[in-house]
């Protein structure tokens, strides 16, 4: 699957840097993500994962460096990127006072989804929320909200999907379903860029990158990372790599 | 003061004043507005553009016109015909007309669409017209407290009451509802903090901000506008404390009955607007119909207005003003108690 690289990669990052005042959140990172790949993003809290994703989504301006998403430069025309990506932010950010159906209808309208009724129905079914369309979103349990967010983020058929900790606060059964959905999307050609804290989930990724203090300190397939670091589990890889930074 | 309360106070002050724009809005803006309003609040009428149409054109009519002009209030614009004069008034170019027909009969016309100033203009005209009659009785008028009848002296102290309410009511009405909406309330509810500590911790910083407002705006009134502060400053401060009990109590009450900040804001406005207009600031309470005058009994701003004006201009003391203090104390206690009780239920 990895060899299928005749086309341009979905995401190209070159020397991407983001500073907030004196603080460097993302420090000169470079890598590429291929089309149809599930790309995992690991790192301790505050390592710069969310900042990177936000830059790639065009909602945060890079301080320097280049980011090409789907062939579009994120610094020059961020609004063009937004048309073919889907984004699910770390914090639930749909409208609490709207119903499930109204939220989906709204985003379908914003993305200009054709056959809106059909698409919304499908999204509700995929999120396993059939029969609950008229429920007010604010009253839903966390797991449902996350399912709704994901359904909303993929409704318009984005070619690249950015998921920022999509499974935090979600029960194991829902989490498994989530990953089934993600894998299915990838099989259909969607590139999935996902951050997580769960090593189990990291194992599902085609490739991983580990961030520490704004820098990418390791990148490769789960197996390769384990081999390179001579560890049996990803968790050990992660702990040893991130710990090294703390010791220094 | 308990330790918890101290931390709560600190947190509230920090949160409120962290945003530099907020500091400007609640601390600098009132001063700035008082400066502008101080110059704006005048019921004097000056520079009345006046069309003059004199079809008789006799010595007599010209003398009367001259008397109007020499008053310095009326600025003449000579027109050839009544129609022309009326057209100018329709256009809003003039606010009054002096019309003499061919027989030399005079009509003085004011623009009645202009409210208060129309009446004042008419009054001036009447005064000028009767000045040269030699009536059997003359009135010699003496105005106490404000011999020059400066409207500014009357209105600027009142601005303090309005400004303080606008600032503190909004702050306190959003205080609780904001924590609930953002979700930090849940966190606070599980701490061992007592209800009264929470409420005092919430309100006291706003009260302090309100007092700073009172002092600063008073300073502007005294030092910039030279409005004499005849009475005692401590008494004024005491009144302000009682007044703040009311605005903060009302704000907290709104906060406990609102679900969103939007509701809180609209409710706050719903209190501020009537409180201001029914306080006697611009519209005399004595002229209001009985029912509405009855409503003003529950308006703390009404009492604060009296206290401010009487202390500033008359130098009155507690011996005369005590009913106003008492009314604010009672209203404030009632508001704070109701709010605290309501808060218990929602919590």
């Amino acid at each position, binding site marked *: 699957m990895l060899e299928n690289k005749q086309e341009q990669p979905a995401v190209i990052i070159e020397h991407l840097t983001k500073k907030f005042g004196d603080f460097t959140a993302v420090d000169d990172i470079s890598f590429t993500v291929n089309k149809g790949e599930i790309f995992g993003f690991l790192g301790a809290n505050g390592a710069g994962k969310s900042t990177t994703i936000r830059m790639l*989504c*065009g909602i*945060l301006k890079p301080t320097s460096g280049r980011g090409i998403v789907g062939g579009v430069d994120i610094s020059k025309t961020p609004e063009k990127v*937004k048309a073919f990506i889907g*984004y699910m932010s770390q*914090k639930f*950010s*749909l*409208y609490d*006072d*709207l119903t499930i159906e109204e939220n989906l209808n709204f985003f379908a*309208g914003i*993305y*200009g989804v054709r056959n809106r009724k059909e698409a919304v129905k499908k999204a509700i079914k995929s999120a396993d929320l059939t029969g609950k369309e008229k429920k007010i979103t604010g009253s839903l349990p966390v797991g449902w909200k996350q399912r709704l967010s994901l359904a909303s983020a993929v409704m318009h058929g984005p070619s690249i999907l950015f998921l920022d900790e999509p499974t935090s606060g979600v029960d194991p059964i829902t989490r498994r379903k989530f990953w089934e959905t993600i894998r299915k999307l990838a099989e259909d050609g969607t590139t999935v860029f996902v951050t997580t804290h769960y090593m189990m989930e990291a194992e599902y990724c085609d490739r991983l990158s580990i961030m520490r203090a704004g820098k990418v300190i390791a990148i490769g397939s789960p197996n390769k990372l384990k081999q390179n670091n001579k560890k049996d589990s990803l968790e050990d890889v992660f702990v040893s790599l991130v710990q090294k930074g703390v010791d220094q | 003061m308990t330790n918890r309360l101290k931390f709560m106070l600190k947190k509230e002050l920090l949160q409120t004043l962290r945003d530099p724009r907020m500091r400007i*809005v609640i601390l600098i803006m009132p001063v700035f*507005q008082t400066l*502008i*309003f101080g*110059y704006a609040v*005048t019921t004097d009428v000056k520079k009345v553009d006046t069309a003059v149409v004199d079809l008789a054109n006799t010595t007599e009519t010209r003398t009367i016109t001259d008397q109007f002009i020499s008053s310095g209030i009326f600025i003449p614009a000579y027109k050839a015909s009544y129609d022309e004069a009326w057209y100018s008034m329709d*256009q809003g*170019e003039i606010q009054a007309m002096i019309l003499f027909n061919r027989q030399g*009969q*005079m009509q*003085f016309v*004011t623009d*009645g*669409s202009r*409210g*208060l*100033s129309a*009446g004042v203009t008419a009054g001036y*005209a*009447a005064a000028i017209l*009767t000045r040269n009659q*030699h*009536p059997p*009785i003359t*009135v*010699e008028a*003496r*105005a106490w407290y*404000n*011999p020059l*009848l*400066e409207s500014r*002296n009357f209105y600027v102290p009142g601005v303090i009451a309005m400004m303080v309410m606008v600032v503190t009511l909004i702050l306190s009405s959003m205080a609780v509802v904001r924590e609930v909406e953002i979700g930090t309330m849940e966190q606070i509810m599980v701490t061992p903090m007592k209800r009264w500590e929470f409420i005092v911790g919430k309100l006291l910083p706003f009260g302090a901000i309100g007092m700073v407002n009172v002092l600063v705006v008073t300073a502007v009134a005294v030092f910039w506008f030279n409005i004499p502060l005849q009475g005692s400053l401590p008494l004024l401060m005491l009144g302000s404390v009682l007044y703040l009990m009311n605005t903060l109590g009302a704000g907290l009450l709104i906060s406990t009955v609102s*679900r969103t900040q*939007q*509701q809180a*804001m*609209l409710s706050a*406005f719903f209190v*501020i*607007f009537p409180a*201001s207009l029914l306080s006697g600031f611009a*519209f005399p309470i004595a*002229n209001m119909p009985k029912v509405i005058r009855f409503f003003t009994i529950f308006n703390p701003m009404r009492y604060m207005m*009296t206290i401010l004006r009487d202390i500033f201009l008359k130098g009155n003391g507690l011996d*005369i003003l005590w009913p106003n203090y008492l009314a604010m104390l009672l209203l404030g206690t009632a508001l704070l108690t109701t709010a605290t009780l309501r808060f218990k239920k929602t919590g």
Partner: protein
Amino acid sequence: MNRQRIKAIAKKEITHVIRDPRSLGMGLAIPVLLLVLFGYGLSLNVDNVPLAVWDQSNTVTSRDLIRDFTNSEAFQAAGVCHSQRDTEEIIQSGQAIAVLVIPPDFAEKTARQEPATVQLLVDGSDSNTARLSIMYADGITKNAAQTAAMSIITAYNPAMDTTWSIIPGLIAIILNVIAAMLTSLCVAREWENGTMEQLISTPMRKGEFLIGKLVPYYIIGVIDLIIAVLMALFLFGVPLNGSLPALAGVSGMFIFTTLSVGILISTAAQSQLLASQLALVITFLPGFILSGFVYDIKAMPAVVIAITKLIPATYFVSLLRTIFLKGTWGMAPTKELLFLTLFAAVILAMTMKKLKLNLDGR
């Protein structure tokens, strides 16, 4: 501009409004209640000024004069004084606002046809009431103020009914605040609740966002306006001498202008607390004090006049009075309408500039 996106945003915004019936109710009920309250409650006329009397003459003539005073609409009897101290106390306590002092020789002088002088002591702290009281007293003693040869007419408002000029002004002041408040939270709320982050990851453009946001509140503003105008006409009997299209056009533009101010506040503030504080501070007191609603703009100093010219409510107060009472629609109102349009354009341009569809402004 994508029509479908605007529609989606507007629809969502309307749903927000409907989901919060209390806010909607208040948005619609506040203007009605305020208009009723103030339409009946406010009067700029000064009448029944409490008048105390110190009659040192105590004769038929002096009592006649007192009766002339107390029988007039301007004054009402509020006590009797017997000494200088009495007069001071009665004014200081606020029991009387004016004291008529008739000297001992009043009756003799009048009998001898000599000019007599009475004193009017007034509480000058309320300068307006004081000045009017003096004028009234002047008028009463002169009695013949209006001879056959001259008359004073109040144009457009012959009965000198101050509700006629208060109501149009009041409509302007109320709409001014309500409209700004309606929109002042609508952008800040999205930032505070975090929904903005999702929204800006979509291909939505600034213009679409703003128009979509404005539409629902514009509808509410127009409903407010219609209710207010109907009340003015049928409840308070204010005549509509001008044309309805003129009224609709001017008001429509004004509501748009003020909604824009609200949306600029909301965009710039990003926090609901700051936004509401700003909305009220910027619209309420300036609208009340500087718009010409109560205080005559021409009597203000030049600098302040310049500031009043920057407040949309100033134009709306004057336009509404012109359209309701004067019924004209000529050159001057066109200028004012032009200003409102220009003002809205500038505000919206500033909003477009302030509005960042990314997280960098945070």
